[in-house]
């Protein structure tokens, strides 16, 4: 932490605070979201904000392995969103067949 000079340190702290607030807001949407797609997108948003948090944190503690963690998280979050999308699509297909 000593390696960062004043301006960069402040920038990192302010970014971490803002990203934390954004994660909190996404969690509110996750809990209150009226429909399933709202919740899926909220989970997606939490994952990508966590990626940003990890990248900023890796700047703060000067440790580059957190970048790889963020990369893995991004790839797996994409897979999770695709799986949820297929699940929702399947529910709609089922509803259409029952209506017919």
């Amino acid at each position, binding site marked *: 932490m000593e390696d960062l000079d004043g301006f960069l340190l402040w920038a990192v702290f302010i970014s971490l605070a803002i990203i934390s607030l954004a994660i909190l807001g996404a969690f509110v949407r996750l809990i209150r979201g009226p429909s399933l797609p709202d919740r899926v997108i909220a989970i997606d948003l939490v994952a990508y904000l966590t990626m940003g948090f990890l990248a900023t944190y890796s700047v703060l503690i000067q440790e580059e392995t957190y970048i790889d963690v963020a990369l893995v998280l991004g790839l*797996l979050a994409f897979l999770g969103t695709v799986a949820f999308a297929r699940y929702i699509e399947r529910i709609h*297909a089922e509803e259409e067949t*029952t209506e017919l």
Partner: protein
Amino acid sequence: MIYSLILQVATRLLIPLLLVFSVFMLLRGHSHPGGGFVGGLIAGSAFVLYAFSRGVGAARQVLRFEPQTLLGVGLACALGSGILALIQGEAFLTGLWADLYLPGGIHLYLGSTLIFDIGVFLVVIGTVVLMMFSVEERGPAVIPSRRNDTS
């Protein structure tokens, strides 16, 4: 079910990245974060992504081996790295290291822990792929039975 063209093109770009990154994770695991489990998870998710975009049958063709075979081979690798130490007279699963100086100035520092890690890698790929394939194959079959229950 119709497979999305956007997803097919996106997975064509993503899958090589995932597979290369999984091998990178596997090999880096000795002295840094990573290792067989994370690498296997990433490689398994690449095949799952393929199954999502092209269907389970196509993914089975790409994988070439049955997931059960991968599980068995992985467990055999992990057991073999332990038995290798037993043959040398060490305790079970002791790491053995060999310094190899290949012609051309290549210096290899090989350990039996890598065999164990590759075993874990294969077991995790087999487990993830087996779970997702069976969920995907069962998916459409569940829907008609549920429809019969409600009607």
